[in-house]
Structures are given as C-alpha cells and as structure tokens.
C-alpha cells in the first residue's frame, strides 16, 4: 500500500494525540472521570515538573528513564544477538528446531512474574537478573519469529542460492538473514513491545529506580499522578523506539513488498 513520509505520519499522529489530551483534560475538569485514579494531564505535567526538579525517591526522573532504557536495551540487544541466529538455525535445521522448540514454546508464554524467584535464585538480585528477565521475555519471541520467517522464504530463492554455492554459514549470512530482514523487523518490533512490558516485572527485583519500579512503587501509595506520569513515559518511550525501528526498517529494507 502507499506510504506516507515519516514526517507526515508524525504530524498526523501528533494531531490525534493532542486531541486526545484535550478531551482527557476537559473530561477531568467536567468531573467525567475520577481524578483520584486518573489525574488530568495538567496534574501529570505538574508532577513531571516536580519530579524533574526534586526527583522521585532521591533519583532524578531522567535517571529513572535512562536506567530503564539501559536495562531494556541491554536485555533486548542480547535477545537480538542470540535470538536471531538461534531462530534461523532452528528454521534451517528442522531437527534442531524440533529438539529446542518445546523449551522455547514452553518458556515463551510463561508469565515473567512467576519466574522472578527462580531468576533470583540462579542469578541474584543485581542488574543481571533484571536484564535477564527482559532478555528472556524477548529472546523467545525473536526466536519464534525468526524461525517462522525462515520457513516462509521462497524455496526457489533458496534453490537459487544453493546453486550459487551458498551453504551453512554463508547461506545464513548472505541469503537467509537478508531474506527475512523485513519479517525480522516486525518480529523485533513486537518483541520490543514485550520486553518493555516486562520492565515492571524486572524492576520488581530489588530495584530502587527505573520507570517500572516507579510505577509499581507509586501505585502502592496511590500516587496516581506519578503512576500516570510513569505510564505516559513508558508509553511514549516505547512509541519513540518503535518509530525509530520503523524508520530503520524503511531505510534497511527498501525492497520490502517489491521483491
């Protein structure tokens, strides 16, 4: 289908967000929504100003965001580096796939909250465990997405590659990887959403900073303004990263839809 330029997209998106914020604020002022649980945008903005000045629990707001970003990106980066080759290998070698698949498919749908005690038992309460939890929640999705993408490559295309001498690693590196790149971007976008979702679970492990922790902690004290601010920041950051991925995808796979 036809594409809009990224700028055009961003403008339309901004317009619809502004409209939503306006409606939200108006609904609050008219007491159509409960301001105790859903503070209006203006209050959230005030809280943001507050936390930027004084921090939340001794940590500046910016550091909460950066810490969460660092954790996610670390877990996510590891998931990409390990998940893509593993997924492709499982797709390329069906026997390997069949052997590993039960574990992948077993672990993938497991609520990460339930895994926290095990992760702590085996990996402690440091950053490793938090990153590991994010890693776990994304890597399995990436593995499945990559393996599934491999099985959708045109057989004829693979035959052509084999006829030109591609085998094993060269097949992986020079044929399969680029062939599934458009699909991989989708998988990675979906996986990133999952990883970011897991932030809260990850930051339940002995954390005293991070957006996910902030949201949970503030929630326990009914600081709904902080909760909402955290939600807005989590959502907006997730959205921003997704936009970046979409931009990268357009740049990296100009042939998508035209091969």
């Amino acid at each position: 289908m036809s594409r809009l330029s990224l700028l055009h997209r961003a403008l339309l998106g901004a317009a619809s967000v502004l409209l939503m914020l306006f409606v939200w604020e108006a609904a609050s002022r008219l007491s159509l929504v409960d301001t105790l649980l859903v503070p209006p945008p203006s209050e959230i903005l005030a809280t943001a100003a507050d936390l930027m000045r004084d921090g939340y629990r001794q940590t500046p707001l910016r550091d909460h965001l950066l810490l969460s970003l660092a954790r996610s990106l670390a877990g996510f980066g590891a998931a990409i580096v390990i998940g893509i080759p593993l997924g492709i290998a499982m797709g390329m070698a069906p026997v390997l796939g069949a052997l590993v698949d039960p574990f992948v498919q077993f672990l993938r749908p497991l609520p990460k909250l339930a895994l926290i005690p095990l992760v702590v038992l085996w990996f402690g309460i440091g950053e490793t465990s938090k990153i590991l939890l994010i890693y776990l929640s994304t890597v399995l999705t990436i593995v499945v997405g990559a393996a599934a993408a491999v099985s959708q490559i045109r057989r004829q295309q693979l035959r052509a590659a084999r006829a030109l001498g591609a085998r094993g690693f060269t097949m992986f590196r020079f044929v399969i990887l680029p062939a599934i790149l458009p699909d991989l971007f989708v998988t990675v976008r979906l996986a990133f959403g999952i990883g970011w979702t897991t932030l809260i679970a990850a930051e339940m492990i002995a954390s005293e900073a991070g957006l996910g922790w902030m949201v949970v902690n503030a929630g326990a004290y009914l600081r709904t303004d902080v909760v909402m601010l955290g939600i807005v920041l989590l959502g907006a950051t997730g959205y921003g990263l997704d936009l970046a991925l979409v931009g990268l995808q357009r740049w990296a796979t100009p042939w998508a839809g035209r091969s």
Partner: protein
Amino acid sequence: MNLQVLIAPDRRAPLPAPLIVVEDVAKRFVDGRTGRVTAALEHLSFAIREGEFVCLLGPSDCGKSSVLDLLCGFEQPTEGRIVVEGGPVGEPGPDRGIVFQEALLFPWLSVFDNITFAPRLAGVPAALYRPRAARLIALMGLDGFENHAPYELSGGMRQRVAIARAWISEPRILLMDEPFGALDAQTRLAMQEQLLIAREATGATVLFVTHDIEEALFLADRILVLSGRPGRVAREIAVPFGRPRHYEALLTDARFGRLKRQIVEELRAG
C-alpha cells in the same frame, strides 16, 4: 559485443564420456493435501556427453523445468536413476551454472552484487571477479545499472542479470531454463552468440531448455524433443551444422528449414 567472457583452456576431452545419464526416470508430484498425482515425466531416458550442447525442446508443461530440477538435485525422481559425473546427483554449486525460468535475483542486492554473488561467497579476490563482472555487465547491456536494485529493472534486464550471475563462475556444466525467453530478437541473438563463444572457450557441457525451435537449431549439437505431458524423449535430433555458426547462413541452409519442419511436426504429433 564479441568479448570472450569466460577465458579458460579448452578442457574438451578427446573421447567424451557420458557426463549426465538419465535412465527411465519418472517424476510424479503428489499434492500434500488431496493426494492428487500429477505425472510430469515418465520413462525419460537420455545421456549427455562431456562438452556437448544439448537443447531440450518441448511444449509448455511437458516437464522441461522438472528435468532441470532433477539434475540439480532439488527434486528426487519418483522412479529411475540419474547419474551426474559418475555419481548420484549432489548439491549444485557454482561449478554447475543454473539459470532458472524465473530470474530469482536476490532483491536485497544490487545488480553488481547479484552478479558477483558466487565468487564473493567462494572468497574469490575482488581483483579477479571485478573485471569479469564488468565484462559481463557490458555484454548483458547492463552498463549504468550496476547499482540498481532488482525491483528497478525491466523483466528482460532481470533475466540478463540472472544469466550473468550463473556465467561468472565459468561453470563446467550449464543448465539453462528458457534463459532468453523474455528478450527481444536482437538481444537474444547477441546472447546466443556469446553463449556459443563462451562455451567454445571453456568446453562447458550445456543443457538448454527452450521452446524456440530456431534457437535450438542454432545452438545445439543435439536436440531432445520431449513429448507432451508426461514428458519423455519423443525424438533425438543431431544438429548437422558445423561451428562456428552464423545465423544468416543457417537461415539459407536447406537442412535448417527441413529440420525445423520436422520438429514442428514432431511437436504437433506429440
């Protein structure tokens, strides 16, 4: 356009042994869901000697592409036996150049990178494959399109890139499935001539699928005329013309017209 692209010593053996043997092969496709059987080939037998140029001629859907798939090892025969270079059919590699009926270019690679795919994979130094690629690009009329993506090419251009991609490795065996099908007469003629020149230089064995009788007569040492589906060899025709051949000369040759008519009748009967 008269460049000698593929420079290599003449390896043609004095007493050529059969390089490819197809013995009583049948190929039937079974639909995975319905179990419906489609017979593409039945009782197909032929042999190709080293250095020979054989054309496979036959009506649409008689199984020509299937024969190539079998010879490449992409498909297994339902019945019968295939021997290539004295053994069972192995995985194809760049020593066996294949041009598929579709171009099957790598959409993420530029024209240049598509053409140089095999040597780059094989670790051939750039200094070696670059000049070869440049000559092929010129030969294929792709100058100025080196950096184009496949989706920016015309149908005929794509086919020419696919041919260059198979030729660059100077394969000992060339399997080509209607490679010149999407080309206009003039471009096609130039390609045909280049193919013959290259073959002369390398002594490659060629199996060339076409549905164009004149093309077969111009190119081949021998023509295998397949019957309609399921395909088998209905007739084998040794092409009597010497080499090098010139198209204009052939057109006036009485044997050319006679052979052509013979084949037309054969095809009409099959």
